[in-house]
């Protein structure tokens, strides 16, 4: 098989996938009576036309990237973390708590402290299902989802009680939100709302790459995740690494919450988690559970999420429909990836292609 053929094969399959995804999405748009080409332009290209738009895409990519990198650590260690949503909420709470408690501590100390608190908050929330699975074999699908509920309600409760902005009580408006956090926990901004969290996300991705592929800890985690039995026979304490990986995963989700607060909202409000915890699972898988795949994947998803907020105002397509289209696109791309990784299929096509060429000669 020639190198040229292999590249051509990839290109053709990806092109076919793209065409079929566009076709299916177009049918849906056509059915609701929307302008197909305008909608595509708005979702896919419009966000890339202006720096303002790009920065909005990036601020959505930042939490996705941090969460997905954390999820990839857990996944590689043999545990599926779908509790990032709750872990992020706990990170938000911890971050807000530190910021409200020590408003006068100078920024070089307070910001790292608050971020660390968010990691600990999320980390504990991740460690619980990890240790439950390691010691008692409790399904993480059950425990993480239940902990999501608890965290969401706890977050909601705190916003209405201990964290509630005193001003809200004075005016009696009662919006459940904290007061504006002290400037000492703010992350600086680069342009528009884009904050320095982006650098943090990239650095963390590289660190996780190093952890997983360049250290003995990552080696043991991957061994536990690939074949727990063989890892145990090889003297690796699988349960320990399971719990550690979940703590790391939770800490990353918590940190994503802290970064989001420090960079974007700067006060705890409802809805900050914005389903990032669930989208993070998709981003992690989509990025091949590898930090360097997750970085572009989180950008793509940031684009899709932002595009769906533009569509209703620009072309009158509801955000729900955009989400349907996203679903289609993701399924098609994942399918195409599976086709590409099927070497038997590739080989068959190669032989058909050779047979065709022989006939021509």
């Amino acid at each position, binding site marked *: *098989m020639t190198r040229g053929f292999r590249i051509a094969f990839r290109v053709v399959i990806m092109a076919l996938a793209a065409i079929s995804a566009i076709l299916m999405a177009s049918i849906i748009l056509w059915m609701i009576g929307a302008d197909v080409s305008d909608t595509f332009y708005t979702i896919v290209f419009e966000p890339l036309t202006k720096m303002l738009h790009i920065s909005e895409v990036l601020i959505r990519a930042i939490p996705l990237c941090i969460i997905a990198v954390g999820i990839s650590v857990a996944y590689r260690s043999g545990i599926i973390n779908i509790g990032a949503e709750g872990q992020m909420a706990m990170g938000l709470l911890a971050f807000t708590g530190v910021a409200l408690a020590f408003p006068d501590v100078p920024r070089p100390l307070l910001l790292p402290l608050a971020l660390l608190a968010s990691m600990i908050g999320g980390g504990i929330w991740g460690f619980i299902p990890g240790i439950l699975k390691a010691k008692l074999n409790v399904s993480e699908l059950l425990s993480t989802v239940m902990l999501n509920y608890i965290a969401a309600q706890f977050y909601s409760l705190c916003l209405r009680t201990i964290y509630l902005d005193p001003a809200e009580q004075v005016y009696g408006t009662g919006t459940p939100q904290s007061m504006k956090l002290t400037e000492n926990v703010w992350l600086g901004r680069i342009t528009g709302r884009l904050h320095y969290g982006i650098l943090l996300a990239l650095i963390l991705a590289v660190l996780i790459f190093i952890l997983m592929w*360049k*250290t*003995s*800890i990552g*080696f*043991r985690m*991957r*061994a536990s995740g*690939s*074949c727990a*039995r*063989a*890892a*145990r*026979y*090889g*003297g*690796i*304490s699988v349960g320990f690494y399971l719990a550690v990986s979940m703590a790391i995963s939770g800490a990353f989700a918590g940190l994503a919450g802290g970064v989001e607060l420090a960079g974007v909202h700067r006060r705890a409000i409802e809805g900050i988690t914005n389903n990032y915890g669930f989208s993070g699972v998709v981003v992690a898988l989509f990025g091949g559970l590898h930090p360097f795949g997750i970085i572009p994947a989180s950008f793509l998803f940031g684009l899709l999420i932002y595009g769906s907020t533009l569509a209703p105002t620009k072309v009158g397509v509801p955000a729900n429909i955009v989400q349907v289209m996203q679903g289609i696109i993701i399924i098609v791309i994942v399918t195409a990836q599976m086709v590409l990784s099927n*070497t*038997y299929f*590739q*080989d068959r096509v190669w*032989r058909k292609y050779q047979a065709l060429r022989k006939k021509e000669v």
Partner: protein
Amino acid sequence: MTEGRAFPPCLFSFISAMDNKIRSLRMEHITKRFPGVLASDDISISVSEGEVLALVGENGAGKTTLMNILMGLYQPDEGSILINDEPVRFRGPEDAFRAGLGMVHQTYMLVPNMTVTENIALGYKKAWKHLRLDMKEVRDRVMEVSSHYGLSVNPDAYIWQLSVGEQQKVELVKTLCLGARFLILDEPTSALTPQEVDELIVLLHRMTAELSIIFISHKLQEVKALSNKVTILRHGKVVFSGNTDDFSSKEIAAKMTGHEIVLPRNPGGQDRGEAVLSIKDLTVMSDRKTVALDHLSLDVSAGEIVGLAGVSGNGQRELAEAINGLRKAESGSIMFFGDDIVNKSPHDVIAKGMGYIPEERNTEGIVPSFSIKENFVLKDISSETFSSGIFTKQKKIDESAERLVKRFDVRCPGTGTAAGSLSGGNIQKVILAREIERKPRFLVAVYPTRGLDMGAVEFIHSELLKIRESGIGILLISEELDEIMDLSDRIAVIYKGSIQRVLPKAEATAERLGILMAGVKEE
């Protein structure tokens, strides 16, 4: 099938089976390429009525591929299949079933938490009545087939309750129930105990009165005992085919590997040193919470091989796991170079210098999705050789892997290849290489050559003897008496979780061991 009402149903099905009996089956000039491999290279085989063809060859010689082509699982690139001299084309296993071919795979395809009847009903389309499944019809059919062929199975037993040998009978009944008139058996004996093997051979002999059989094997005794004709494959090519009776096992073995195989033997000599592994009164529970080891005591000295003979399931697995810290002991002690290692963690036992070749090479010996080089350092990633601090030394790992692959003749495209994609023999070489490279002070080897071809067995046996030569003690657990008698200095027989007797090699004969293995106490 509707006109079948004129006959009693059971009679009809046999008559119809005879109507379109497979009188001959030929595969001609079959060629099949996989990416980078020529799996079948112009292979031709033929089987006539009532014949048993043994398809023999080393692991990776292309036996299973050829049978998968016959069953329609793969399409051949070239060549044709003829049944009763008519060319046929199978687009999938369904077509092959319809033509009367049935295959029993090496790993059984049964659902553990369903009964025998339910498992068979899965494929028994005749009993599917729109939305209803006629379980009684299936059950009758199971009973009919099992009594006709003398395959005794309990139709209401759950699969998980059955031993491996019984599961295989279920597979046979299933295949026959679905109307097979021609059987293909892929390594039918690889997981059976010696007794079960004998039983199976008798059974298959009886079945040849009505069926033809192709069976894949590399155990030459069975080939001799069962087949009329033998076809030997090597590297995807037929290197020999002829009548089984005209050749000795040795000749067939030589043709299979391309050179004469003489399995090495323990030369004896060497005085027994001090006991380095000393097990006293060890009691261990099985997974089902029954007593697996019952106050077992056994000593192994430096530089000797103690073979543990026994029918599998008498506590061998539990013993190996208890020694390696993988299974909790209820009571007793395991002294290892003076330290009690009972109920220590696997990590601690490994750190004390225990080497271990576990029973399941694919799920216990290696991490299948890890590369060969990663599997080499599975136990030693934190050692000073392979990492400084927490950072791994990639270069050292690569160098050591290259060296080990050469020294142990692991056949692979490169050290980055996933270990799970290798053949059984090569996986075992990877495990052996890792364990020997660690310079263990002792080695526990469990079924080290199970399912391997002669070439690989020869290699592993000679490596084990080399380890013994270097003064390391080995506990060899095996169910192959030949292996145990060839390699051991002393032979211990295990029965129901305790040691029946320990015999010096000179006193051990196959008969005597067999009697002990069956649980008969000697005076």
